[in-house]
């Protein structure tokens, strides 16, 4: 069994083990969830260690026939595009599980769904059979539905059903696209790499239809304008740990899908759609930033800033160059780290104050130096401060796109300014100024929260200073990818 299969299997076993534990044994359930996700993280650390950065080929491949009648395989492997996302997923899951130890409602079910969610996410990033990919893709949906719908905020049912139906709609279109690819291949296959070789030769019109079907599925996940409106709602209603996973990992499934399949398999359609893609990227950046500026709710602000940041990602993708692609993939990783920790930090204050209203606070920096320090680091990273993780990815996205689309990129820079404006305004209102005595009774961060957030802050700094930790993984694959698209 390959390492990858093991990585996917471990959380699945964990989920089943949790099912077997009586729901009253809360400590045990938490321990089991943590242990299995931690093993998964260790294994993905091993993956990082063993990953060969000199090649663009798929590694740790395992291929087993699954449904021979339809030529469907259990087929997994990673390359530079996916390996970092696998590690990111494993990391964020562990941290989110640690943070979620404060969940008291139906603990058993919570961690069961959480581990199942991890299986789905990891599966999406390692699957090389499109059918298997689809199965994992849908597998993320159900746990997410319950995690939001049961453990969410006041409007949780509405948010959960909206998330579910919206993404399901997208996946069905995606399924149509997948089937179109399948039936246009000879012999019929779901093998992604084989499909990439064959679909490239399809006529333009066919490519366009398939691209469109796949795109809607992926765009809803990213979320790309105008398919993004489920996101603020889902984020605001979801419990903290789930928001972290949602922003940190789930959104990347969309951009990952486009880069993994749509671009290389449908190069003619890609070229045809490029003007739309760049426009949507710019809209995401500027519009997302402006929407975030209008928010009074801290969590919603961070949610909209995700729309903005995924816009940078799409900008890099629309560059169609090694620079832009490198930036886009790096941006996926760093956005996961940064926005993930921002959602944690929002959770920290919400757990204490039971409000997220930006105007309700004031002067917190004086009494909660640790909290304020971490928040300021992550906010600075999010607004692209050099030396922190967000900068290099963002810069490469802009630089890459500038070659092909200078004027669009010039417009997109407005997003940077607006992002700085709303984040700094938030810092000013929440942390600076005279202390609001209403919050005198609150305590600074506890150990559980620190354990969940500090690793992300450290990584934010480390990757900011030495981006090669990520870029070395990514670059060979990207160079290859750009080659076959062009």
């Amino acid at each position, binding site marked *: 069994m390959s390492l990858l299969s093991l990585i996917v299997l471990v959380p699945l076993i964990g989920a089943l083990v949790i099912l077997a534990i009586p729901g009253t044994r809360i400590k045990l359930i938490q321990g089991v969830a943590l242990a299995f996700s931690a093993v998964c993280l260790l294994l993905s650390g091993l993956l990082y260690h063993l990953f060969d950065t000199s090649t663009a080929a798929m590694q740790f491949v395992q291929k087993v026939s699954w449904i021979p009648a339809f030529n469907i395989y259990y087929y997994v492997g990673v390359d530079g595009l996916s390996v970092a996302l696998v590690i990111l997923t494993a990391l964020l899951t562990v941290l989110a599980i640690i943070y979620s130890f404060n969940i008291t409602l139906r603990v058993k079910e919570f961690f069961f769904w959480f581990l199942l969610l991890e299986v789905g996410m990891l599966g999406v990033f390692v699957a090389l059979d499109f059918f298997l990919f689809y199965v994992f893709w849908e597998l993320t949906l159900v746990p997410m539905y319950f995690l939001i719908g049961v453990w969410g905020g006041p409007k949780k049912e509405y948010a959960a059903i909206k998330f579910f139906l919206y993404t399901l709609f997208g996946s069905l279109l995606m399924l149509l696209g997948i089937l179109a690819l399948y039936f246009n291949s000879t012999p019929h296959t779901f093998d992604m790499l084989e499909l990439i070789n064959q679909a490239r030769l399809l006529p333009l019109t066919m490519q366009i239809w398939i691209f469109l079907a796949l795109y809607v599925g992926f765009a809803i996940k990213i979320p790309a304008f105008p398919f993004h409106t489920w996101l603020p709602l889902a984020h605001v209603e979801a419990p903290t740990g789930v928001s972290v996973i949602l922003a940190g990992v789930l959104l990347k499934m969309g951009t990952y899908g486009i880069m993994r399949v749509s671009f290389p398999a449908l190069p003619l359609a890609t070229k045809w759609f490029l003007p739309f893609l760049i426009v949507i990227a710019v809209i995401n950046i500027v519009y997302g930033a402006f929407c975030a500026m209008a928010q009074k709710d801290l969590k919603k602000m961070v949610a909209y800033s995700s729309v903005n940041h995924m816009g940078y990602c799409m900008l890099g993708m629309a560059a169609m160059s090694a620079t832009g692609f490198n930036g886009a993939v790096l941006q996926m990783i760093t956005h996961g780290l940064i926005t993930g920790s921002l959602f944690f930090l929002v959770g920290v204050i919400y757990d204490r104050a039971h409000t997220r209203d930006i105007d309700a606070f004031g002067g917190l920096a004086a009494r909660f130096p640790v909290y304020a320090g971490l928040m300021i680091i992550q906010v600075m990273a999010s607004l692209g401060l050099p030396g922190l993780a967000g900068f290099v990815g963002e810069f490469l996205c802009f630089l890459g796109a*500038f070659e092909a689309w200078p004027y669009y990129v010039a417009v997109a820079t407005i997003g940077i300014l607006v992002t700085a404006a709303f984040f700094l305004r938030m810092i000013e209102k929440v942390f600076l100024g005279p202390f609001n005595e209403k919050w005198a009774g609150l305590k600074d961060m506890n150990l559980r929260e620190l354990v969940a957030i500090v690793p992300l802050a450290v990584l934010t700094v480390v990757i900011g200073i030495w981006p090669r930790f990520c870029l070395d993984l990514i670059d060979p694959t990207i160079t290859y990818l750009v080659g076959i698209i062009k």
Partner: protein
Amino acid sequence: MLEYVFLLPLLSFAVAGLILAFGKWLPLKGASAGIAVAAWGFSQAFMLFVKAIQGTITLPYEMSIPWFSFGSTQATLGVYIDGLTIAMLLVVTAVSLLVQIYSTGYMHGDPRFKRFYAYLSLFTASMLGVTLTNSMMVFFMCWELVGVCSYLLIGFWFEKQSAAYAGKKAFITTKLGDLGFLVGLMVLFYATGTFEISKILELAHAGGIPAAAAGAAGILLFLGAAGKSAQFPLFIWLPDAMEGPSPVSALIHAATMVAAGVYMVARLYSVYALSPVAMDVVAWTGAITAFMAASLALTCFDLKRVLAFSTVSQLGYMMMALGAGAYTAGMFHLTTHAYFKALLFLAAGSVIHAVHTNDMREMGGLRHKMPITYITFLLGTLALTGIPPFAGFFSKDEVLVAALARNPYLFAIGAMAAAMTAFYMARALVMTFHGKPKDAQKYDHAHESPAVMTGPLILLAAVSVVSGWVLTRHEMFEKLVNFEGALPFELHHVSHSAVAIFSSIVAALSMALGLWLYKKRPDIPALVRETFSPVVNMLEKRYWLDAFFLKLVDIGDYLGAFMFSFDFNFLDQIVIDGWAWLTLKLSRLQAWLDDHVVDAAVDVTGALTLSAGRITRLAQTGLIQNYLLIVAVAISVFAAIAFAG
């Protein structure tokens, strides 16, 4: 020795972390570590300076390591050292060292003393990065980092609403300029294919960059410089930045960070020199800034804000010099200005430390209480106003010569700004140190600052007195910092001595007028204030520039609110949920149709069949006679038809 220069920023970075983590256990809560590193940095810079003058080291020197690569481009971390670098290095390390010494006194007893030193070290590290880097990408990164340090230090006393606000204002205003910088950087990258400064300069010298690209890149990059170096119209943040502690104002907002924009233009001078348009943009922006800011200083009552406007004005001078083609003069003025302006800010800090107010209307007569502060401030004033033989005279004189050689109007604006400079400095000097104390209580409590504060003042005063004269001996500075490329325009011939005499007379007269008015006849300024109240109002509103930018912020907020309203009310609630609603309604309709049409059709068919059966059943009587009768009738009918046919 050149091989170790890269350690300067690295050590400063490290010490920032050290102070933050372990400051509690270090002597002076970590300040000692910061000062030690700064002192070492200064010693290195000074030795480099001496060796460069002697010519015992070969310049330019470059060293780098690969950092990361994307596609076929290799980003590097490294240093690029030439005369310009060394001049700037000397400024940064010297002022940083003195400010750190001074701050042990000024910040004594502050609850966040440790953090202050960590920030200062972080700033110094970033500023050294800006100075030393060999790559424009790293330049931009460090450029942003100094911006953040500035943000943190302006808002250091963040419990004060105004300080928190000023920090944010500074960050966002400079960020606005940085958008231009970012785009300019990308233009430059695609015009040259590299971020490495040496390669860019080489290419520019060889004429390998098209003038249009050089001009576009130059102007866009200059937008960033206008933000950082507080040029028109982005200078609005600098006066408010005075909310920060005075040592911060001296280091960041007088000597180093605000000079970074000027340094950037000088760093890429070969690129600017390819485009007369870009040069003119730099020159005229500088001139307008010099004039506007000097006029704004005339009506200020806040001592530090007078100095802030003065800084803006002097930065305008530097830009004007660079734009007019006077590379050496611009950098020379940057150097001398850094010392005497840092001196003025630190002296002002010493005053504020004593009287706990920035308002000059509550000061007066302080020369008796604070003789050292007074004398050093006076020397700084003389240096700034350009009275010979103080430092400012030499550098300002060269700037004016350059302006005249390029364009007489530039010169006229510069001369007017010089006159105003002398006047507002005389005003500040009198209001602060001369006359009778305005606030007896504050005056009584005032006392001279401790030696850690007056020491740096004295040192800086000495430098302010002699540096202009020393650096012009044997054309020392010119040998260190000079531009060998060609300028895109011809310069007029100008008599140096005539300009020198003229500018000294203007400065002296103007200063004398200021001294006389504010000492002997304070009624006249009051009268002028009343008579020209619309002008005064305009100056106090800062030419309505703040209002203009606040309007932009309002527009941004409005746009945000509008877009969000569109997003939620239209896109989400109407389109998406509307669709869901429609689907729901459609499925209801379908259910109804299913019930009432499809299902009904089936039922109707069934019912029809049943009734048809019921009717035909009537024929089923069970009587054999009836059946026989029907058979007989049928046969007769058929027969009749057959025979008839």
